[in-house]
C-alpha cells in the first residue's frame, strides 16, 4: 500500500513538470503569490473596518437589525476582496499573459514541450488557490477580530460563492486577453467591465442573500438556480477560453 502511495506521489510530482515550471517562470514571478494572498484580503479587511453603522429609529426587532448589519459588513468585506482581485488580475495577470505571448516567452515554453492548455489550467488553478487562501485568511480575521459569528455551512456557502466569482472574473480576463492583445487597453477595458458589472455579474448573489439577508425570503430553489447558473457560466467561459487559446498562434 505504501509503495502505491509513494508511486502516486512520485507520479504526481513528475506529471506536468514542464507546465509547472512554465507557470512558475511566466506568471508567478516577483512575489505574485504573496500579493494574491495579501492584497485582496487586506483590502477586504479595510472595507470591513470602515463600514459605518446606521442609527435606527423604527421599531424593527433587534435580531433583524443585527442580521442586516452583519450582512452589510460581510458584503463590504467581499467587495474589498473583489476589488483587490480584479485589480490584480487586470494589472498583473493580464499584462503578464499578454506580454508573455507577444514577446515569445510563452512560445519558448510551448516550444520545449509544455502543453499550452495545461499551462492555462495550472495558471488558473494556482491563481484560484492563492486568492482563495487569501479569502480564507480574511474570513478568519473577520471572524476573530471582527467578531462576526457564522455557522460552518454558511462559511462554506460563502466560500463557494466567492471562489466561483473569482473564477468567473479570471476567465473573463483571460478571454479578453486573447481577443485584444494590448498591454494598456486590455487591463483598462477589464477594469471598466469589472467596475460596471461588479454587482450585476455577481453570479452567486442568491447565496449571499440566502445566508446574509434572510429578510429577502430567498427560497432554496433560487439558491440552486444561482449555483447552477454560475457553474454553467464558468464552464462556458472556460471552454471558450480554451477554444480561443488553442487557436492563437505563438511567437517563438
Amino acid at each position, binding site marked *: 500500500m505504501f509503495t502505491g502511495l509513494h508511486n502516486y506521489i512520485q507520479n504526481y510530482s513528475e506529471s506536468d513538470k514542464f507546465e509547472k515550471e512554465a507557470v512558475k517562470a511566466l506568471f508567478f514571478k516577483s512575489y505574485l503569490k504573496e500579493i494574491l494572498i495579501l492584497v485582496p484580503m487586506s483590502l477586504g479587511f479595510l472595507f470591513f473596518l470602515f463600514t459605518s453603522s446606521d442609527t435606527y429609529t423604527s421599531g424593527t426587532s433587534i435580531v433583524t437589525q443585527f442580521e442586516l448589519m452583519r450582512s452589510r459588513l460581510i458584503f463590504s468585506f467581499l467587495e474589498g476582496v473583489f476589488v483587490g482581485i480584479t485589480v490584480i488580475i487586470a494589472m498583473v495577470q493580464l499584462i503578464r499573459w499578454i506580454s508573455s505571448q507577444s514577446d515569445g516567452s510563452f*512560445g519558448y515554453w510551448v516550444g520545449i514541450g509544455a502543453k499550452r492548455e495545461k499551462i492555462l489550467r495550472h495558471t488558473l488553478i494556482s491563481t484560484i488557490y492563492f486568492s482563495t487562501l487569501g479569502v480564507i485568511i480574511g474570513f478568519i480575521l473577520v471572524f476573530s477580530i471582527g467578531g462576526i459569528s457564522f455557522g460552518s455551512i454558511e462559511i462554506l456557502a460563502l466560500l463557494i460563492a466567492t471562489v466561483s466569482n473569482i473564477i468567473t472574473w479570471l476567465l473573463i480576463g483571460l478571454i479578453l486577453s486573447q481577443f485584444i492583445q494590448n498591454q494598456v487597453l486590455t487591463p483598462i477595458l477589464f477594469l471598466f467591465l469589472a467596475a460596471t458589472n461588479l454587482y450585476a455579474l455577481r453570479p452567486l448573489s442568491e447565496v449571499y442573500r440566502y445566508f446574509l439577508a434572510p429578510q429577502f425570503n430567498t427560497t432554496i430553489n433560487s439558491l440552486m438556480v444561482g449555483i447552477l447558473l454560475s457553474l454553467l457560466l464558468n464552464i462556458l467561459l472556460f471552454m471558450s477560453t480554451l477554444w480561443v487559446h488553442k487557436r492563437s498562434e505563438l511567437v517563438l
Partner: protein
Amino acid sequence: MKGFSYLVEDEKDSKQLVLKTSKIPVSLIIDLIKKDKTFHQIKEQYSSLTEVEFQETLDFIKFENERLLFAFDSVQKTYRNVVALKKLTYKTSARSIGLFGRNGSGKSTLIKLLLGLIKPESGSVTFNYSTQDLRVVPDFPKLPSHYSVNKWMETLENLYGLPDINVDFEGLFDLKGDELLGELSAGRYRVAALLPIFYGKPKIIILDEPTTFLDAVMKDLVLTLIKRQVEKYQSKVIIASHQIDEINLFSDAVLLLDDGLLLAEIPMTDDIETKYSIRVSDTMEFEGVLKKNKIKYELKETRFGFMFVTPLNTKLWTATRQYLSNEKMIYSIKKIDKLQEKLGGIITE
C-alpha cells in the same frame, strides 16, 4: 570498453528497439551510422562479437535509421498575405537535417510548424517525440529573465536530469551563479539558452542559428561540446543556420529553402573528394600548365572572373610552381567545402 547501456533505459517506449547486450562498443554504432567504413571492414574490426550480437546491432541501426524524423504533407502557411511555405511535401528519416536558405526563406516557419506553435492552413505535419527527449534552442530564446544562472540550472536539472558531461559550465562559459539571465551579455545569454542540450539525454535537438552572438573561441567550444553530446546519445539534429560550417558539422542532409519553396535536398553522407578553387592572373597560361600535368579541371565563370576547380592532387602543387616561375600571379586558392561544392553556383564566392 564502455558499454552501450544508455540505449537500454527506454523500455517504456514499446516502439523503441532495445539492445540488451552491453558488450557492443559505442564506436561500432557510430561507425555503422556514419558508414565511414565498408561492412567487411567493420566486421573484421569487431570480430570479437558473436554473429547474433552483430546482427542485433545491425537491426537496431536499421530501425533507428528508418524511423521517421518528420513529415510534411502539402503544408501551406501564409502570414498576412506573405506565403511562408508553399505546398511543402517532404518526408525524411535522416539522422540530421540542415535547413539552409536566405532570410525569410521559411526556415523558422518550418521549425515553428514542427513544434506546433503555429498551425498550417492546409496539409499536415508529423513530428512525434516526447518532451523529455526534445531540446529546442530558438533564434531568439526568451528565457525567464528574472532567474539567476543557478536557478536556471536547477530548473533544467529538474526538467531533464543531471548534465552528463562532467564540466563546470559556470567556469567554462564565464557564467556567474547569482547573475540574472536578463542581465547577461548577448553571447553569454545565448550560451545559457544552449545549456538544455547538455542536461539529460537528448534524442532530438532543434537548433535555430545556435551560434549567433558567440565569439570565435566560444563558438568553437560550444559546437565541440554539442557535437560530443550528439555523438554520445546518437541524437537527431535539425539545424537552421546561415553558416555552412555549422550545417556541415551536424547534417546528413541539407534542405535548401527559398521563398517558402523547397529548392533541393542535398545528401551529405557519401564522400566527396576535397576540391580547390583557384583564381589566377593569366587564365590561358594556367590552363596550359594544368593540361601539361594531366590534371582534371573545370573552368567556371563567376562575378570575379574565371575560376578553376580542381581536385586535391600532389601534381597540382607542381603545376602551380611551374606557373609561378613564369612571374605570374595566383590571386587565391581556396578549399571548397562539401556543402559549397554541392550547392554549386548558389553561394560560390
